[in-house]
């Protein structure tokens, strides 16, 4: 089957072509202006950040050779030729990694419980009073915007050096992050069960317990597991400021140029994070099916 394509007469076509070109030109101009603005911002940022390409090119060799150095043992051999020498501190580091995991576990759990207590107050459909909701929302926002490590620094001054400050910092940060996500789940929940429970004369607390909670608890667990994954990464650096875990050992190794130790500790951290990611991913799939991630 053939279709005849009608071709317009010249004059009509010329007008249409001109309109098309103008539209394209306008779009290009806008794109160009946007790009120019963006590049100007980048140049400004480059000045602000003291970017020095000469330093980069002079020392870029250092970056490559840094990896060369951290992969070389004191004896001059490659690290993987002698795993026993490379991972000489595996027992100590493994213990510290365990501490890191424990910090993130305890911190995530405290944070999840706090977020659980607060999220019904922060969600639009379940909050008992608007002023309370506003207050809780601002509180959660504050807890989530201030970086965890800043909390850790402040808590170290209050609670002393050690993992306690790290746990509390992670707990506060998780409260903020999870509180927001939890409240969003609650806002998506079906309100009809709540009306049903309320019609029996139940209090606000019973409404939450028997009408909202059964709908949302799976989502809570899923997000809490995701948060645990993120917190493992974060607690691996808590030791930088003295808040416990493997970070302490790593920062010492980097600062004192114990090259092969750096790569050994990094390897152990990355492997641990892999294992945690895979385990929690598997657990989430087991608990809620494949599509629960989104």
């Amino acid at each position, binding site marked *: 089957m053939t279709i005849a394509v009608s071709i317009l007469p010249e004059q009509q076509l010329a007008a249409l072509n001109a309109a098309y070109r103008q539209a394209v030109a306008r779009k290009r101009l806008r794109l160009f202006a946007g790009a120019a603005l963006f590049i100007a*911002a*980048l140049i*400004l*940022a*480059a*000045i*602000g*950040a*003291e*970017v*020095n390409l000469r*330093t*980069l090119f002079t*020392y*870029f060799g*250092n*970056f490559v050779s*840094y990896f060369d150095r951290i992969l070389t043992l004191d004896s001059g051999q490659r690290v993987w030729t002698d795993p026993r020498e490379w991972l000489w501190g595996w027992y100590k580091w493994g213990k510290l990694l365990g*501490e890191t995991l*424990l*910090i993130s*576990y*305890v911190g995530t*759990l405290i944070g999840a419980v706090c977020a659980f207590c607060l999220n019904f107050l922060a969600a639009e459909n379940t909050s008992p009073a608007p002023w309370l909701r506003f207050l809780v929302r601002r509180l959660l926002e*504050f807890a989530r*915007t*201030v*970086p965890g*490590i*800043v909390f850790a*620094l*402040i*808590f170290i*001054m*209050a*609670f*002393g050096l*050690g*993992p*306690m400050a790290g*746990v509390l910092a992670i707990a506060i940060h998780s409260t903020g992050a999870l509180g927001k996500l939890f409240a969003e789940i609650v806002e998506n929940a079906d309100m009809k069960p709540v009306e049903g429970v309320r019609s029996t004369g139940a209090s606000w607390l019973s409404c939450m317990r028997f009408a909202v909670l059964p709908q949302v608890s799976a989502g809570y667990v899923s997000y809490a597991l995701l948060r645990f994954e993120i917190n493992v*990464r*974060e607690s*691996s*650096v808590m030791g*930088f*400021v003295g808040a*416990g875990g493997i970070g302490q050992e*790593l*920062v010492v190794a*980097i*600062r004192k140029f114990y090259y092969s130790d750096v790569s050994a500790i*990094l390897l152990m*951290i*990355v492997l641990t*994070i*892999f294992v945690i*990611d895979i385990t929690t991913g598997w657990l989430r799939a087991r608990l809620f099916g494949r599509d629960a991630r989104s």
Partner: protein
Amino acid sequence: MREFEKPDTAALRTKYPDAFERPAAARLATPAMIVAALAVFIFGLNDLGFEPARFIAGLKQLGWITMMMIPPDPGTSLPLYLKALGETLSIALLGTTLAATLALPVSLLAARNIVPPNIIRFPVRRFLDSIRGVDTLIWALVWINVVGLGPFAGVLAIMVSDFGALGKLFSEAIEAADKKQVEGIRASGGNALHEIRFGLMPQVLPVIAGQVLYFIESNTRSASIIGIVGAGGIGLQLAEQIRVLEWQRVSFLVLMILVAVAAIDFISGKLRFAIIGRRAVA
């Protein structure tokens, strides 16, 4: 009033045995999990040195610190702090842009619909994962060893750590793209590069732009702390003021970070809608 019929419990019992007599394993699973979680929690509290006395003393101290923070006051170093904040914003913007530029080509290699063979895709993905597994602060320490103290190390640290995250996100966006446009280009005789440029990029770029803007926003947060290890920006000032117990300045710096993050949030939200239009962000 009509009497309700009494339900035939015996018949229901035989019909739905699981609802009346759940197997012991199913009934015990949830409590067992809760007990296990609690046991680990208590072990953790014990192992990490949570003593009630220490906790209460710390809370007292914390309350005292909070009192000392009011009112926030920059003292005489406001210009210095503003400069540090500008440095932080520069680090975030530059680091994210560089990361996105580097991640785009690599993400093509990690996307299933561009590079089918697993032999290439698998190592690329694991490579991105390993980069992502190392925290930004660790990268900052590494770069300080290379280019020295200062914000430039911060830019490079954000660049590397975001390269891992953006590479993964981009490749997911590319995998979610519609195949039909690509097939159209192939049908009209385009080569592989044409397919990517004209079939794929128009679909993927808006999503990518949204993600990059979101990362600039979240990197303002990361960039505000990498100063703690000496990689420039406001974190350096913050850590210093905390160490010398100048609490009024600390609270002022925290407020500055909050305001800056909120402002970036607002701007990037507007920009995201301008770029993506009414389409939902993936």
